[in-house]
């Protein structure tokens, strides 16, 4: 059946269904976010008046209240330190390993498979051994302990992404450099590193978002403000301030603002980095 033979009525229905589907899905995605934003400006009585009523005064009282109630700034700082540290470590180690694996040697396949095997491991099953590892390294309740764990758990996917980029460098280029007398290290620093920087930036976006968003290990490995991340801290609005909903809403809005802003600024890069996670 060609497009022309399709009865006009059928096409209208198909078109309507298509748009209905897109719009419903988009509404389901956006409305909760907008509702939360709207509610974060309301007072408690206004909140009980109905979900769509507008606040009488647009003030940031809930936001400053939330900042007073919880040390959000500390949580934010911890999250940044952890995300930056673990992303940097994962990227450095993955790039080095991926470079080494561009060379032929006896255990190459085995090492490659071993580094990839983590992709199939649900790390949540390992929470006890990982807890003891961090504890015995003296890193319990520190941002470094959490950063270390994120490095370990994101290494497989970081390696996968970066290896993909390294494989796009033509062998001829490396061979030419070697013939010119460049050593193993200088090929890495002078040729490979500059060429993979765009790829590393993409990997960094994905890895830092993963680290920023993690809850389980952050929750398991910290009990004090000095190391709790935003994801751990934001839950305190639920447990200790259940009575003050508007403040909890404002806290939640502030917690999601950084990644949404980053996405607004870098939307294409973020989308690309997500798409780069191996499904190539």
């Amino acid at each position: 059946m060609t497009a022309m033979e399709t009865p006009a009525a059928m096409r209208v229905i198909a078109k309507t269904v298509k748009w209905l589907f897109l719009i419903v899905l988009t509404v389901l995605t956006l409305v909760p976010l907008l509702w939360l934003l709207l509610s974060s400006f309301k007072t408690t009585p206004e909140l009980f008046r109905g979900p769509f009523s507008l606040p009488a005064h647009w003030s940031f009282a809930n936001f400053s209240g939330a900042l007073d109630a919880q040390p959000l700034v500390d949580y934010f700082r911890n999250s940044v330190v952890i995300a930056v540290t673990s992303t940097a470590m994962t990227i450095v180690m993955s790039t080095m390993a991926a470079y080494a694996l561009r060379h032929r040697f006896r255990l190459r396949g085995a090492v490659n498979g071993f580094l990839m095997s983590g992709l199939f491991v649900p790390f949540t099953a390992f929470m006890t051994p990982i807890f003891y590892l961090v504890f015995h390294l003296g890193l319990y309740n520190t941002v470094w302990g959490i950063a270390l764990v994120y490095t370990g758990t994101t290494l497989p996917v970081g390696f996968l992404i970066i290896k993909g980029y390294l494989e796009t460098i033509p062998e001829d280029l490396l061979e030419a450099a070697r013939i010119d007398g460049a050593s193993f290290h200088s090929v890495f620093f002078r040729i490979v590193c500059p060429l993979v920087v765009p790829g590393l930036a993409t990997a960094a976006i994905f890895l830092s978002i993963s680290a920023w968003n993690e809850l389980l290990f952050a929750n398991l490995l910290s009990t004090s403000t000095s190391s709790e991340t935003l994801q751990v801290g934001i839950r305190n609005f639920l447990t200790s301030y259940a009575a003050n909903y508007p403040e909890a809403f404002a806290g939640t809005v502030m917690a999601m603002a950084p990644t949404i802003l980053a996405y607004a600024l870098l939307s294409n890069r973020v989308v690309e980095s997500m798409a780069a996670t191996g499904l190539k």
Partner: protein
Amino acid sequence: MVKARQLVVYLGPAVVFALAFIVFPLIFVIVLSFTQWAGIGPAKYIGIQNYTYLFKDPAFRSAIYNTLLWVAAGIFVQTPLCLLTALIISRRPFMWKFFRTALFIPSVVSTTILALMWYFMLDPTVGLVNGTLNSVGLKSLTRTWLSDPSTAQWAIMVPFVIYIGFGMVLFLTQISTIPRELLEAAHLDGANVWQQDFFITIPAIRRAIALWILFLVGYVLKMFEYPFVMTDGGPVNVTMNLPLYVYNQMVTANAYGLAMAAGVVTVVLGALLMLVVLLGLRWMESR
């Protein structure tokens, strides 16, 4: 030509991390799953008692059931939604960039925050869901969604199922690699949009779909935030899942041996599910 010393320097850090975070934990959980251990002091060998206890524990059975339910929901509800959206948006309809951007937003927000947001959404008194039902005169449909055993499990699955941005973007990337001439030729041969989608686009990206499902299995096996934040596994364990079960046994009950046994079951279940997906992929590719 390559010196062993150079390889050790470059591979060393990554290999050490993989040993510390994969091999060591795997041995640790397997060995201790056969013991009774409170986290400190000596562990007592008790054979397979932890495993027999697990399969009799209703909370653990609920955890297994829910994990499988989420995998099924991911494969049979979320994945088709991702695919359908990607197929629609790939034809660049009116405002397609807006839809792509909007649908992707939840993928950059942490699951913890999304869970918290949906906890508020489903709040019986101030939540948007009951608020909307009340304002359109459907008061009879309002529920205490998260504390009602008949709705809690479905309620915490809602954000998981409707946030399709990540899968959509992955499929869109794949669809963009299909040569345009292929679809144009099909169009000239008289294939309509549906036929092009079903006979060209979907088969062309089947590998990406299988890999997406593989990713989904891993995601579900690591899923902790939705049950932990929204219901803490309750009411009466109806929303319990494997990571939360391990967490509760370890942190709340101090039953480390039991937590380890549940961890081993998680790893084995994950391996089995992924094997099924990989075999399915191989079967599809061989046809």
